[in-house]
């Protein structure tokens, strides 16, 4: 089996005071894929990333980056990755140019041509002190420093925060090109919308637990359809609510609104067939909704 780009086994982090930020994370990110790491704020995304980078130490479990143990071979691992922190802090007094130069010296490697191309592409202002830059312009510096040495693996924690839609699109293009050249990208975000068009697979984390890993296509298949059926007479919602996966949202005289995944559709139609149907409308799947649904389910499970 090839060495995974990222592998976590039973990775856990409990902070002092007993806060379980991450519980038994098992995760495998393959070479050459874009892996979207999704979850609401405070779910444990940044904790996971900081464990991978050996900025914080696990309470239990292990992690490897490019086959290198993050604790014992962290230096070698970090040589081969690029990182955009979720909360990027730079040296306010330096200009963007001097900040990038300083980071290149810290890494001991500089590819000026590649850096200049990235700077031009994102239109990064290099000659003003960082304290005068907007959040978006600082974020561009964060992206440039992560990509400028052309690393094998990129760990990006909410990388497009503060970027305008045009630049977000430019960033997605950069991700696609990077993947096409055989690199791996681990992209954390709180919004499915941000990753669904570039990620191959997504992992969804909530309250420190990974609750689902699936391909974006499979997720879409599982997305709920919204169905509104109008019957000639009044309807007893129980016969629909009893079906697996179906949620009855609204009953009003003869009108019934429910949501169900594709797999439950056969049951819905058969249940409706016993009655006189006046109208049936089905709305297309909404990916964002299944995402929210997964959050909620995990919530119910935890309660």
């Amino acid at each position, binding site marked *: 089996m090839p060495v995974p780009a990222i592998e976590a086994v039973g990775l856990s982090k409990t902070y002092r005071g007993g806060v379980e930020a991450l519980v038994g994370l098992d995760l495998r990110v393959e070479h050459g894929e874009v892996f979207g790491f999704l979850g609401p704020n405070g779910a444990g995304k940044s904790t996971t990333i900081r464990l991978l980078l050996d900025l914080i*130490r696990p309470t239990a479990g292990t992690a490897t980056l490019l086959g290198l143990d993050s604790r014992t071979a962290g230096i070698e691992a970090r040589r081969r990755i690029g*990182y955009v922190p979720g*909360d990027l802090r730079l*040296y306010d007094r330096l200009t963007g140019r001097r900040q990038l130069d300083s980071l290149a*010296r810290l*890494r001991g490697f500089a590819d000026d041509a590649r850096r200049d191309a990235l700077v031009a592409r994102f239109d990064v202002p290099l000659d003003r002190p960082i304290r005068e830059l907007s959040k978006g312009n600082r974020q561009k510096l964060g992206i440039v420093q992560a990509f400028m040495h052309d690393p094998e693996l990129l760990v990006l924690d909410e990388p497009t925060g503060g970027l305008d839609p045009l630049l977000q699109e430019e960033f997605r293009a950069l991700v696609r090109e990077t993947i096409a050249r055989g690199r791996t990208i681990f992209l954390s975000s709180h919004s499915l919308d941000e990753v669904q068009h570039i990620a191959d697979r997504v992992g969804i984390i909530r309250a420190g637990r990974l609750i689902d890993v699936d391909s974006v296509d499979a997720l879409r298949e599982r997305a709920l359809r919204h169905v509104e059926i109008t019957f000639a007479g009044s309807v007893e919602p129980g016969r629909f609510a009893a079906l697996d996966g179906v949620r009855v949202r609204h009953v009003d005289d003869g009108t019934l609104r429910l949501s169900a995944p594709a797999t439950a559709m056969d049951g819905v139609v058969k249940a409706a067939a016993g009655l006189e149907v006046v109208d049936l409308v089905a709305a297309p799947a909404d990916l964002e909704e299944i995402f929210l649904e997964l959050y909620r389910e995990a919530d119910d499970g935890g309660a």
Partner: protein
Amino acid sequence: MVRELFRRGLDDHRRALASWCAGIGAYALMLAAIFPSVEGSADFSKLVQSYPEALKSLFGLTGSVNIGTGRGFVDTELFSFMLPLFAIVLAIGSGARTLAGEEDAGRLELVLAYPVRRGAAVLGKGAAVAVEVAVFCAASYAALALSSVAFGLDLPPGRLAGGLLGVGLLALFHGWLALAVGAAWPSRALAIGVPAAVAAGTYLVGGLHDLASWLDPLRFVSGFWWVGQAPLSNDPRWSGLPVVALAAVAALGAAAYLIERRDLETP
């Protein structure tokens, strides 16, 4: 790689360091300019001799120190308090800022996500603190040597260098202690407070152990005692300097060890 952290550390404090050097230079020159008016003044010596014993002991105004001479004057006015104070405050500020301050500001996050060993990063920052202290001591030497010639203080160059070496080592110990505290806990307040308290406490022990017998056994923990008082009048205590240097190295070693052991604070 780590050299970049050394460079960054120095670069960030360049302006502060320049102000400190200008400050001690101006202070030294101002004091020296006063000296001709008190030189050989019996009244001034009498005034000083009438100070309470505790104060005299604290400032090292023992029989061998004659404040009417240039060396006694500089010993009393600079080496007894102001010079170590300046140097130590500079060093603690630098040591606390470069590690705990950077962590507080969230800037260590990106730096340590680079291929940099934490211990090595601390050593690079420690080297920057050492260079700052050295520059400050060199500036003090220059100002005092200049004053000595300009106002006839007649300061012996060897003793002056030795005295400043003692002050520099004391400052270095406290600066590296600030690094060690910052390495152990991510708090700039502690990284300033702990070494400052150590400096104040050991200063009192070093100055007063003669007067209070219960303090006497504690004198060995005071860097000020090892460095000795009034280096221009008495000769610097050369044998004590390596002890302070060793303590400083131990503090830096502790810093490099402690930073490896804990979680980096979330920005």
